[in-house]
């Protein structure tokens, strides 16, 4: 088997096992056979992808290409293709690793969930779809993976039956991304109809006119914004936290939300020569970085803090793409996948232990959950960019690229580079602030588990059905090991920038730590220091209270949900009402009206035929006379 054909196994095996898994009946007892089988299928799917990716990574010396005819629709040939450079293989590796850990973690996390089997199968399908996006050599293949991921995300967010908000959150996630995908589909359509093929290689090489290319890339950016939760299509991500926590780790932190970044990376040769598209990308990135960071400062739900920080961190990646450094974007993608997956899995351990998502009900967890605590320290440190953890190096790369682009020479205009650089710099401080707040508020001080409002908080979330142990404790091994193993890349992955193989694969520049590091370090210290100082001044009180009036604004994500509701949802509903009314009262009424009118006319005519004989005879003769006159007239 050639390397390319073997590469098809990477997305193929999890997809196939996922489909098989959907056929399993939902086992409802622990140790029940279908449950074990479902777990085995899930782990085998992610495991196979991981092994094949590793083998390719170790053996391949140059980019792998493989394509096979799939179908020809009219003049457009679609292929099933595998095309990856080394960078793509690293992304595939990250996806497979996180997916494998999440599958293992879920076995314990959902140990009493009767619908575990479809859940595991859907994760497998998702993993396959994400790997298809990463490895496909064909834009239609990317589109297939892209949408299947969206569908799996929808199904998994809505997994929990006890959560009243879960179905709405799932629907919102699918719909908002689908709105972006209008653009994605159209953009892909423009690219492939112009190039005459949907294979990515020829598409990248095709000579598009500037206007067409700008239009196509802007359309694709709409899809990217939807999938990667970039302003203004980010609103679904915080709500998506209604999904089970391992899902948040896999889909809504490490992989799917990074897919948009990856697609821009994949099509970067096109973006590189389109200043308008990179400018738009840069402006949206700058807004997203600050928006996400500020919103994260005021959340009470631990998962929502992490969700908003994901929004913000993906803004760093798109920002790096906008200022012309796809390598920095990809590096941050990889480190982010590691530390954010770690944070979410650790958050799952906290929720598992205390039975609530709310920071205001936590506190003092450090002594009871040492492993979880230290995982949080590592994860939050990496998120904030504390040296020498992974996030420090990748964030430094992004900042350096942006600073470099302010001198001109990037694909986007210089002012965009300034915007991205300033936003990224300020966000370092804000990120340090909310990371410190999260750590202090959840793990230090005294427990607030039994708050003034009593124990009503146990109702609601999935996690709440775990019986509350007398004292919170670290999770069982199946959950603990993935967390501890993920801490390794969260610490060390940044140093990989010094490993030549990894560096050349990503086309990263040599790491250089100059005076430029001082500014972000200063902001980092300021942010963390302020949060610490607020906490130390009044221990046990949420440092977010210091935000004052802005707190509510930040907590609601700048009311953008309401804006979206007013600008999109309500007009669409009003339009639907109008069209339905028109359909019933005009279109169908016209048809019904024609029917009744015909019946009435028929009735009138029938009545007209019931004349008395003399009148009828008179009419017949009159008719004959008229006809004769007409005939004579016509003849002469």
């Amino acid at each position, binding site marked *: 088997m050639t390397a390319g054909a073997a590469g098809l196994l990477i997305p193929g095996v999890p997809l196939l096992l996922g*489909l098989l898994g*959907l056929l399993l009946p*939902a086992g409802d007892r622990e140790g029940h056979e279908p449950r074990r089988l479902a777990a085995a299928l899930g782990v085998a799917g992610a495991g196979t992808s991981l092994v094949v990716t590793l083998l390719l990574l170790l053996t391949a010396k140059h980019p792998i290409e493989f394509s096979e005819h*799939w*179908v*020809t*629709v*009219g*003049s*457009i040939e679609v292929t099933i293709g595998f095309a990856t450079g080394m960078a793509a293989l690293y992304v595939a590796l990250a996806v497979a690793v996180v997916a494998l850990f999440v599958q293992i973690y879920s076995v314990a996390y959902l140990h009493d969930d009767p*619908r575990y089997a*479809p859940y595991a199968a859907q994760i497998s399908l998702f993993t396959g779809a994400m790997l298809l996006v990463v490895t496909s050599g064909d834009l*239609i293949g990317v*589109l*297939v993976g*892209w*949408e*299947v991921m969206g*569908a799996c995300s*929808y*199904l998994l967010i*809505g997994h929990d*039956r006890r959560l*009243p908000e*879960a*179905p*709405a959150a*799932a*629907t919102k996630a*699918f*719909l908002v991304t*689908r*709105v972006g*995908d*209008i653009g994605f*589909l*159209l953009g892909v*359509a*423009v690219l*492939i*109809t112009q190039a005459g093929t949907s294979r990515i290689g020829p598409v990248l090489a095709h000579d598009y006119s500037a206007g067409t290319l700008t239009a196509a890339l802007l359309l694709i950016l709409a899809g990217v914004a939807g999938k990667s939760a970039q302003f203004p299509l980010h609103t679904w991500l915080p709500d998506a936290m209604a999904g089970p926590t391992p899902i948040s780790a896999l889909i809504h932190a490490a992989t799917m939300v990074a897919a948009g970044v990856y697609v821009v990376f994949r099509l970067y040769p096109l973006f590189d020569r389109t200043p308008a598209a990179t400018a738009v990308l840069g402006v949206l990135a700058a807004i997203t970085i600050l928006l996400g960071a500020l919103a994260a400062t005021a959340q009470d739900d631990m998962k929502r803090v992490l969700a908003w920080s994901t929004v913000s961190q993906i803004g760093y990646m798109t920002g790096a793409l906008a200022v012309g450094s796809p390598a920095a974007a990809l590096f941050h993608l990889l480190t982010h996948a590691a530390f954010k997956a770690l944070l979410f899995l650790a958050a799952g351990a906290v929720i598992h232990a205390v039975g609530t998502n709310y920071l205001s009900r936590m506190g003092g967890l450090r002594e009871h959950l040492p492993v979880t605590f230290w995982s949080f320290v590592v994860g939050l440190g990496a998120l904030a960019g504390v040296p020498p953890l992974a996030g420090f190096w990748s964030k430094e790369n992004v900042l350096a690229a942006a600073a470099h682009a302010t001198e001109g020479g990037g694909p986007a205009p210089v002012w965009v580079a300034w915007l991205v650089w300033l936003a990224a710099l300020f966000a370092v401080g804000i990120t340090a602030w909310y990371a410190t707040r999260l750590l202090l508020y959840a793990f230090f001080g005294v427990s607030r588990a039994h708050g003034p409002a009593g124990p009503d908080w146990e109702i609601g979330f999935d996690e709440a059905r775990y019986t509350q142990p007398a004292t919170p404790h670290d999770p069982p091994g199946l959950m603990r090991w993935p967390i501890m193993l993920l801490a390794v890349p969260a610490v060390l992955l940044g140093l990989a920038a010094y490993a030549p193989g990894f560096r050349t694969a990503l086309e990263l520049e040599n790491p250089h730590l100059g005076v430029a590091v001082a500014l972000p370090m200063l902001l980092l210290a300021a942010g963390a220091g302020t949060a610490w100082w607020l906490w130390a001044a009044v221990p046990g009180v949420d440092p977010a209270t210091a935000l004052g009036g802005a707190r509510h604004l930040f907590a609601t994500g700048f009311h953008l949900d309401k804006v979206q509701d007013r600008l999109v949802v309500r007009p*669409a*509903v009003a*339009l*639907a*009402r109008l*069209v*339905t009314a028109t*359909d019933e009262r005009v*279109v*169908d009424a016209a*048809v019904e009206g024609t*029917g009744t009118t015909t019946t009435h006319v028929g009735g009138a005519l029938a009545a007209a035929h019931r004349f008395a004989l003399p009148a009828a005879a008179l009419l017949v003769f009159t008719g004959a006379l008229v006809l004769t006159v007409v005939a004579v007239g016509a003849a002469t």
Partner: protein
Amino acid sequence: MTNRDYLVHGPTWLQVVLIAVLAVPAAGAAMVALLPSRADRPARLVATGVAAVTLVLTLLLTAAGIGDRGWFEYGPDDARPALPWVSVDAPWVPALHIDFHIGVDGISYPLVVLTALLTLLCCAYTVWKVPEGGPGRTLAGLLLLLEVGILGTFLALDLVLFFLFFEVVLLPMYAVIAGWGGAGRRRAAQKFVLYTLVGSVLLLLGVLTVVAAAGTGDIVALTGGEGLTRNTQYIAFALFAVAFAVKAPLWPLHSWLPDAHTQAPTVGSVILAGVLLKMGTYGLIRIGVGVTPRGAAWAASVLGVLAVAAILAGALICLRQTELKRLIAYSSVGHMGFVLLGIATLTTTGIEAALLGNVAHGLITGLLFFLAGAIKDRTHTGDLAHLGGLREAAPTLSGLLAFAAIASLGLPGLAGFWGEAFAVVAAVQRGGPAWTTLAVLAAIGGALTAAYFLRLLRTVTHGPATPTVSAISPAIAGPEWFAWAPLVVLVLAVGLIPALVLTATSLPVFSLSEAVR
């Protein structure tokens, strides 16, 4: 057309098979009708057997498509149209230039198999469950009669014959709705039959216009618009377009459809949505674009605008529906809008997308109506306000509904994707501000489609089970699996291997789109 020898093709045994495809269900219908009323169940079993034989016969026709490729030797440069794989031509009413000319090619073949398959599934379903209203054997017999009409329409290669088969379908469908339907069945059936009869009158006028002008009704000979002046083509296409638009149905000529679907029994809805609507789109491709290409080119933009209007209107109306079957019926309006958009582009990509969309819609909506029927049978209501939490009460049924809904909203990897995405691609391919706008609007319609299906799933499957739903049993009967499983498998198979539908279409579609230029 003095020398028509070249029109008759295929080995004799295949010609026999071709005739048998029509003769077997016709004979089966007669046989079922003649069986005594006490043999109700045996009669339904006989009908199922006949439908199975018919399906096997249609599958045998594949041999013609795969085997000898000799008929494909006409290259793109050849002026002759692509010829059918196998055909039978016998003089019927020579004085009126009417021949019994039937044949099958890559365009009609997928629809022929789809028809045979859905009829078999419906007959088998009828063995298990007869809707209230009349004897089951009559229903099964009517299904076979419907099959004859629909297969005849797809196989006919003579305009007059096409018209006759087109009409044969009307009365059995009327009887199925009026006999076994819901509470408002009579009115819905009358509306269906009167509305589509108006379309038929226009079709007859169009057929007569063409036959009178060209002196022949032979579709193969007429393909490419040979012997028809520009004005004749314009007039004939206008008549055809309206006639087929009623059948398809194209907004705003659709209003018979929701009533008919809501009232029809499950098997009636499945046949109606699965294949009957396809007679309209098939006719538009085979006759509208084939026989009057200049007319099609002339009216393409109008057709495109109406198609997009149908997509958007269908989706928006679906957002407001409160009845399960009515929602699915309106979703057909939107889906057929995508098919018509593909046709309206008149490009090879568009027409192939339309053919794929046709088959995909038949599979997916057939499945959706089966599932809607199963839900209504169990809960005795289709009112969305009374449905909810299906996944708590019947997880498998709920999972199947989710699968069908997600397929219907065009998820890539499932059948619905190809037709809709490539209709949009084809519109982009046409280029220019007008077609680009249509592509954008159609893509927005795709997102709205997702919106109403997700709303449906959220209402019906998620949340706590309503009292109506929690009372139902989660079990799914064997016959139900028999009817659903092939559709589920095919939805996935066509999604993964769209070439199943498209393999043999490229040449005939190429010749159609060449004629338009």
